[in-house]
């Protein structure tokens, strides 16, 4: 099996990276956290024009009909850029909650989100109690085990978040709601896509933290040379890189089992989420350390990725929950490799 990215996937990543590199994302993240959302929407519309919102939406609903691999590649770039917003929710989770059949009531929402006319966010019982950036979303989808309810005008109450750019809300239903018939499996699968999307985002965040740290230790001189030349510093960075590179195949493997719908897809999403979360968190601690702890201050850009890595590590299911799921799956059948039986 060939694991290298196709030229098309590389071009998508480059286009996204170029676009996001041309805007001041740290400034956008700060104003987003403060509730000033104008600049964020400008970037979002550019991303919509590029086609980002349709990546995982089937072609018959106006999307590009691409798979989890492309989605993960995009989310990694978005994590790298540090752009806030309900991105995993809109891009990865929503297409799995709303069936795309033409007679489905969810179809118009799916089409609008794919076309970038609507923004969606979700709350999922047990693991995702708060809806991210719900005040900016046109629709909040509330999911219980096999029930999905779309709420258009909810009463929202803002909650504290470790990452101020992740604005969390409790959702109370007030007015009109639409209930979709979902089976428990599709809600579970949507959650898995969220966890996998979050893992991909964490990979990008970890890589950005490492890049920021590497640049800092090349520029900061002490005892007449860059501090990155000292073993105590460069070994830390090498370890962070190793963790990230070992997490990457797990994220890609989970994309493959999600694509094929293999029975191990939940287990693989969990494994990817645990390892990507740990790797990004390790990169965050290392970056903070080699920066001489300056990233603690909110004024320093490093802070944005530090808080995001820490918050996302326990979002979309805690590491403990995911670990238990991997352990249960392995106890049941230890022989299926990451990515499903066909990857062997």
């Amino acid at each position, binding site marked *: 099996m060939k694991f290298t990215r196709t030229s098309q996937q590389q*071009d998508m990543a480059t*286009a996204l990276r*170029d676009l996001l590199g041309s805007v001041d994302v740290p400034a956008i993240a700060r104003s987003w956290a403060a509730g000033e959302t104008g600049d964020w929407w400008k970037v979002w519309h550019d991303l919509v024009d590029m086609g*980002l919102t349709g990546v995982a939406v089937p072609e018959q609903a106006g999307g*590009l009909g691409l798979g989890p691999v492309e989605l993960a590649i995009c989310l990694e770039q978005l994590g790298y850029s540090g752009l806030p917003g309900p991105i995993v929710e809109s891009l990865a989770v929503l297409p799995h909650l709303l069936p795309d059949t033409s007679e489905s009531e969810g179809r118009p929402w799916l089409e609008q989100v794919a076309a970038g006319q609507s923004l969606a966010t979700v709350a999922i019982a047990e693991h995702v109690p708060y809806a991210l950036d719900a005040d900016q979303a046109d629709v909040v989808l509330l999911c219980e085990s096999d029930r999905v309810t779309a709420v258009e005008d909810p009463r929202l109450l803002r909650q504290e978040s470790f990452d101020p750019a992740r604005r969390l809300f409790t959702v109370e239903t007030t007015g009109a709601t639409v209930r979709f018939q979902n089976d428990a499996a599709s809600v579970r699968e949507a959650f898995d896509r969220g966890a996998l999307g979050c893992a991909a985002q964490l990979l990008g965040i970890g890589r950005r933290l490492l890049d920021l740290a590497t640049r800092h230790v090349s520029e900061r001189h002490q005892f007449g040379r860059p501090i990155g030349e000292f073993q105590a510093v460069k070994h830390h960075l090498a370890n962070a890189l190793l963790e990230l590179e070992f997490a990457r195949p797990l994220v890609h493997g989970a994309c493959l089992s999600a694509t094929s719908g293999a029975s191990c897809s939940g287990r693989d999403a969990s494994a990817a989420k645990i390892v990507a979360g740990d790797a990004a968190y390790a990169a965050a601690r290392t970056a903070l350390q080699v920066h001489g702890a300056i990233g603690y201050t909110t004024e320093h850009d490093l802070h944005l990725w530090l808080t995001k890595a820490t918050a996302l590590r326990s979002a979309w299911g805690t590491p403990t929950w995911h670990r238990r799921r991997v352990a249960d799956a392995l106890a049941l059948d230890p022989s299926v490799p990451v990515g499903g039986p066909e990857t062997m």
Partner: protein
Amino acid sequence: MNIVVLVKQVPDTWSERKLSDADHTLDRASADAVLDEINERAVEEALLAKEAQGGEVTVVCMGPERANEAIRKALSMGADSAVHVSDEALHGSDAVQTARTLAAAIGTLESVDLVIAGNESTDGRAGAVPAMVAELLGWPQLTYARKLDTDGQSVSIERESDAGVATVEANLPALVSVTEKINEPRYPSFKGIMAAKKKPVSTLSVADVGLSADEVGLGSAPTQVVSSAPAPPKEAGVKVTDEGEGGVQIVEFLSGQKLV
């Protein structure tokens, strides 16, 4: 109207660029290769003209096999098709030979109305090829355009040089070279990237465009690079410690350099 855009793959501007020791040609392996930024602007301008006037945009590129990455970028931005002149014999060609090859490649296309090029590449920086191509085609050349208008019959540009801005007009067919002020190039959309794979790219050899191998390449180039050396490292500047005389010392330094 049918528009041809001349594109070149160059080493990334931010990477270290060097010449190979053996024959002083560009060492392409030592740096990441990208579509030259000025060519992205040329493609953008062609796409704008196409959107206003209709027609097709064809990318013409001369370069080794890996230059197809640069071509793919232009196609994913929205160009319709491409001609890639790729031949071992072209290695080391100078500006005149490059212009001959490009003009011959344009000659293989039917009814070209407008050729758009960047004013100069970021690696060679000769800035001569667009004018040479126009001369070989026998078409009017409108160079250093910061603004381009066309109605499908004629083309009009604002030509910006050190001497000022001139408005220049010509009937089509014509060649225009653009400066970096012309526009902001678009990002390829995902749809464009997916469509680029299916767009026709015809790869031509030197013989296919009607030239013979001994007319091109390092061996028969009219100009030869006989030696090359890396730019000398920047020397440390003069430090003036101000002990009441700082201003005077600065003026003395500047007048020593004949600057005041």
